[in-house]
């Protein structure tokens, strides 16, 4: 088996194997790990990150990056909380609406003004965060308790929490779009070689715009969930979400250079990082070791380090010989 082949296998199945191994470890070691309560808590909470990571995954596959997702989610949560007093639908629409707006600005800055994605989305990160603070008057905004908005966060379809169902539907759609539509193939083509894609007549600017728009919309939707789960619009939440999302996408085996990637392994990446946290919490509960929140971020950083070193050693070395 040659290295390139091995790299592809590890990229695709490595994260899934690690995920299964981690779940097995937790199941064998902790009594309540697979209890309905713990499972629903983990998947409910991580559905916000899953949505943000899905948008990020598409952006990264085009070779771009979206740093604004965290503050867009915060802005979305504030907008949703303010509008929740008019009913559930206006609340959801407002959250997604501001997300679409931020995404559209990102898309225009990247495609029309030719500003590097990294800088363009850095600007909207600041602007969205400022808007969230202005809109909320610098404090958290309670959601309406009478309009039923909270049920978005607390409710369940049969046994699946609504946030989780939303995330699952989004991932199913994302996977379909990536694998079976012209737009999805164009996303990968752009990431592989933007100039070549343009010369082939692919609608490069339109697809890039669409990708940032989607990322913004998903971040807004994550903000709606944030408001419903926390009973309030939270203007200062979302700090560092973009980096969590990037980490999840990378752990999921998507190369940051663009041109390749998978939606399903991104979901596995989100779950892996989320469950890693959960396992650390259980380990604290066992009392053998005490890992504070501080050590948890150290562990998360080390985990990311291990993944990128593995990716680098598997994918980069053969290239070097070719050059």
């Amino acid at each position, binding site marked *: 088996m040659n290295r390139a082949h091995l790299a592809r296998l590890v990229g695709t199945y490595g994260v899934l194997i690690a995920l299964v191994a981690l779940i097995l470890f937790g199941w064998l070691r902790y009594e309540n790990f697979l209890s309905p309560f713990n499972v629903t808590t983990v998947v409910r909470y991580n559905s916000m990150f899953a949505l943000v990571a899905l948008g990020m995954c598409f952006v990264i596959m085009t070779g771009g*990056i979206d740093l604004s997702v965290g503050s867009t989610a915060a802005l979305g949560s504030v907008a949703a909380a303010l509008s929740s007093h008019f009913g559930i639908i206006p609340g959801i629409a407002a959250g997604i609406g501001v997300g679409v707006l931020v995404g559209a600005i990102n898309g225009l*800055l990247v495609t029309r*003004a*030719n*500003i*590097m994605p*990294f*800088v*363009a989305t*850095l*600007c*909207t*990160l*600041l*602007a969205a*965060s*400022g*808007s*969230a*603070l*202005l809109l909320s008057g*610098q404090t958290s905004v309670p959601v309406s308790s009478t309009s039923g908005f909270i049920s978005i966060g607390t409710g369940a379809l049969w046994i699946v929490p609504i946030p989780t169902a939303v995330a699952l539907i989004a991932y199913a759609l994302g996977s379909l779009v990536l694998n079976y539509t012209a737009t999805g193939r164009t996303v990968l083509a752009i990431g592989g070689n933007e100039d070549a894609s343009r010369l082939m007549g692919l609608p490069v600017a339109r697809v890039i715009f669409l990708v940032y728009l989607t990322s913004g919309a998903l971040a807004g939707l994550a903000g709606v969930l944030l408001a419903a789960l926390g009973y309030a619009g939270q203007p200062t939440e979302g700090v560092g979400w973009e*980096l969590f999302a*990037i*980490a999840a996408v*990378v752990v999921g085996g998507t190369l*940051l*250079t663009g041109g390749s990637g998978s939606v399903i392994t991104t979901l596995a990446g989100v779950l892996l990082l989320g469950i890693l946290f959960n396992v650390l919490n259980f380990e604290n509960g066992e009392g053998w070791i005490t890992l*504070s*929140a*501080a*050590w*948890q*971020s*150290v562990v*998360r*950083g*080390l985990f*990311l*380090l291990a993944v*990128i*070193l593995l990716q*680098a*050693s598997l994918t*980069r070395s053969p290239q070097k010989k070719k050059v």
Partner: protein
Amino acid sequence: MTVNAPGRRLDSFDVLEFLARYGTLIALGLLIVFNIVFTRNFATLQTLNVNLTQVCTIVIVATGMTLVIATGGIDLSVGSIMAISGALAPLIFLSPVFGDNIALGVAIAMVAAISAATLCGLFNGWLVAQFRIQPIVATLVLFIAGRGIAQAMTNSNLQVFRVPEFQWIGLGRPFGLPVQVLLMVTLVVVTAWLLRRSRFGRSVLATGGNERAAELAGIAVKRTKLAVYAISGFCAGIAGLVVIAINSASDANLVGLGMELDAIAAVAVGGTLLVGGRATIMGTLTGALTIQLVRYTLLANGVPDAAAMIVKAAIIAVAVWLQQQRRV
């Protein structure tokens, strides 16, 4: 990133080109004039000191960041490195070992904190140079883990201290000027000289301009990258010490939070090409001063900080857009 402008005549005076080259300086000048006219008590030494003190740490960090960006990289970990340096120093000079010899304790604390920060930078450089990992991901590792390390060192406790020997670097006023301003000016001058006149500076720009060509031309690309990330860590280490000295306290949760964005913004507004290959330290200084003065002007005239953030975002976008209109 090159931008073709087919319709533009070469011989005529080009407004965009002019603005791209001097826009930040003009903006800075206009801001100063505006403030002298409209903002009460602006033209005083105190206002100057307040603004300089606030902008100092950003400039110090942004100086290192300019070098990193000049090689085509980016350093997201500067804020976390500041937290590590800020957490480590008080742990050393407050330890009972130096009970009667506080000066020795402070000296060791400073050297250790800045060395640790430089090592963190070297680690970033190692990932980028040796494993060819994209800078944004490589420095993401320490961005996440670094603050955790700082929090773990201090158990997330606030370290409060009153040690004049140490706090001199934040509060001292030789010749009536704050020490950190002198520190900032020294760093800026030395780095500007390095970038313009030294062989190292040429290597930095060549690496950022065309890495492959630089390598073929015999430039030690790997060593250059290692060096710029180490310098960025070094600068962040100093900035971390200055921040905790000013605050008389070190809070690992807060020191340097969001600094990477401020530093990158200063570099971008200053006119350094974000894809590498062209850099200006003086520009970074001007950029940082402009952003600071915009914020000060808005706050002094009753605009809330949140709105100032939106203005800052617009300024960065316009500045970077203008930069791209330059024909180089």
